[in-house]
């Protein structure tokens, strides 16, 4: 019965799941780059720079959605402040990108433009070391991680739950937004960071860099899905789900819910931050509006649309909502928020388990009528891989 970790990791997902992941990897790492670089623009299979960037952006959102699902779907903690961790990761890497501009800024000084504008003569202390790529990576992980840990420790220790927790996270991200809007905070005020030139000395606008960032986003998404899959099928995941369903009972049999919640909460925040760090160089800007309350709520909508507690559902949800957003904001910009609102109400009323739940309902019926015996043990595996086809298709489109 004892199985080595490697085997357990491999068996945490069924073969179809691995196959879907392999196809996704092939499309993201080989298919898209070849179509982008080699095919002439007239070819129907050509992938434009716009599409690559849009898909890379949505892949980052999908990572956030999966991170959100880990805490909301599996631990029952609804955060309405996850945009904060995403933005902090973005700012952490954005600092490095600003320093990479060097003397190519409008003022030709080796200082970010907004600091020159504010008449600052040297870098504030918290910018020290920001020209180092490695230090930027440390910042991206450590700052949101530490904030999540400290915030989570006090919130969970005080047994703050449910809607109260959601409201506090919402307030947290709002407070951070107000802080970052101030010029004196030292992060560019309401303009944030933009006008990035290069990463590690390479031109940020080159097709190769665009594809590298896209490929890294795809890699991060696959990593997060695998990590999530491992976590939720481990004993840790079962304890987490038990905490979600009956926390006091879990304490009664000897577990300390505080540390379980804190672990998944902090991990979720760090994953969001990594997504944010990959997002910023692709869209070329980060400003405090990323911390707005509405952004964080939108993350919850992606997860709800795709299906909570399914890991792959949120990926689909992120793609559906964001592709719709790209379409609406171009075609009927004034109706986008109405559409989003209707989508959320519709999903809550008619698809409580999201798109994945609908899929399971449609395709679980048949075998149940064929065989008389009612095996209620759901095969959580039968669905996800299909969804990844969708995601892969979405990425290739």
């Amino acid at each position, binding site marked *: *019965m004892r199985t080595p970790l490697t085997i357990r990791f491999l068996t945490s997902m069924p073969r179809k799941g691995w196959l879907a992941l392999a196809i996704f990897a092939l499309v993201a790492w080989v298919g898209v780059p070849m179509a982008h670089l080699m095919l002439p623009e007239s070819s129907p299979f050509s992938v434009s720079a716009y599409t690559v960037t849009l898909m890379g952006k949505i892949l980052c959102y999908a990572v956030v959605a999966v991170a959100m699902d880990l805490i909301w779907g599996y631990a029952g903690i609804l955060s309405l402040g996850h945009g904060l961790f995403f933005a902090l990761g973005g700012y952490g890497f954005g600092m490095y990108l600003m320093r990479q501009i060097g003397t190519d800024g409008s003022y030709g000084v080796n200082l970010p433009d907004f600091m020159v504008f504010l008449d600052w003569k040297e870098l504030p202390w918290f910018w020290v070391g920001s020209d180092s790529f490695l230090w930027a990576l440390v910042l991206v992980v450590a700052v949101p991680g530490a904030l999540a840990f400290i915030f989570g420790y006090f919130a969970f220790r005080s047994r703050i739950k449910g809607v109260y927790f959601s409201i506090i996270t919402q307030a947290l991200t709002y407070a951070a937004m107000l802080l970052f809007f101030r010029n004196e905070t030292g992060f560019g005020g309401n303009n944030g960071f933009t006008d990035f030139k290069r990463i590690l000395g390479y031109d940020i606008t080159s097709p190769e860099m665009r594809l590298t960032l896209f490929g890294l986003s795809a890699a991060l998404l696959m990593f997060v899905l695998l990590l999530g899959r491992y*976590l939720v099928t481990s*004993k*840790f995941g079962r304890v987490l789900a*038990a905490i979600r*369903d009956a926390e006091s*009972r879990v304490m009664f049999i*000897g577990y300390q819910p505080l540390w*379980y919640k804190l672990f998944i909460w902090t991990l979720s925040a760090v994953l969001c931050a990594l997504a944010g760090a990959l997002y910023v160089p692709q869209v070329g800007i980060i400003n405090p509006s990323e911390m707005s309350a509405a952004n964080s709520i939108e993350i919850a909508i992606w997860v709800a649309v795709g299906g909570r507690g399914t890991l792959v559902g949120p990926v689909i949800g992120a793609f559906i909502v964001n592709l719709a957003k790209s379409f609406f904001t171009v075609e009927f910009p004034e109706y986008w928020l109405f559409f989003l609102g209707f989508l959320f109400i519709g999903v809550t009323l008619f698809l409580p388990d999201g798109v994945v739940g609908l899929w399971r309902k449609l395709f679980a019926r048949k075998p149940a009528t064929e065989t008389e015996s009612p095996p209620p043990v759901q095969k959580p595996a039968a669905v996800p891989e299909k969804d990844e086809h969708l995601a892969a298709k979405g990425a290739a489109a």
Partner: protein
Amino acid sequence: MNKVLDPQGVRPEGLNDRENWEGPASDGHVFRAGELDLSHKVILYLDDISVSFDGFKALNKLNLAIDAGELRCIIGPNGAGKTTMMDVITGKTRPDEGKCFFGQTIDLTRMTEPEIAHAGIGRKFQKPTIFEHHTAFENLELAMKMDKRVWKSLFAALSDDEYDRVSDVLRQIRLDHEAERPAGLLSHGQKQWLEIGMLLMQEPRLLLLDEPVAGMTDDETERTAELFVSLAGKHSLVVVEHDMSFVEALGGLVTVLHEGSVLAEGDLATVQNDQRVIEVYLGR
């Protein structure tokens, strides 16, 4: 409430000398802090326990001793103090006076609820609270006595021994054919058994069971009695129950509580013929 007692003063007489004894224990018996000592065959002592809530005496100089391996039933009319007694034993309620010992050495009046649970006293509440979305197997796995910190859970894998233990308990509670069903789909009686199984997974020495057959069918009640009888010996059980046929099926000693103290004690037939017990149950 939680008064600090002189550690020497609270020990039952005769133990102090032994504890101060520096040389090898003459009878080969060594005390270790926190370890259950059953050298006098008694697993639970309640000595002159009194608890009052706003002047109402829920327990009034209650004396009770449960032997190791015993199966004891506690009966009594409503308000007799049965649940309060359970609360005192599990640390939920502190007694105003009196002593409460687990074995010879463990003073329950000075321990917190989790400490008492960890020391080996398991309690089953009236309403089963199982994890409905987890399978019966997973419910037992979660309840198993093991390192329950986050890091261990992340890399935990069931060993053969642990797997066998879960399987054994599943058989004991007659759920071995339902192991993979979500617990929420089990019948009421099966849920009660699962709850008892979760208790067993924690390897308690003493089991406190509050109305375990409430809401069960006759058949399920009968099977529960069989289960409890099979558990006695290895575990000690204290069962609070109103169902007299169930108490009869268990067959152990019966203690009747009334107004917070023991009214009568003996086997069921003796107790049922006791004039005072009849008065209490039938009214004067």
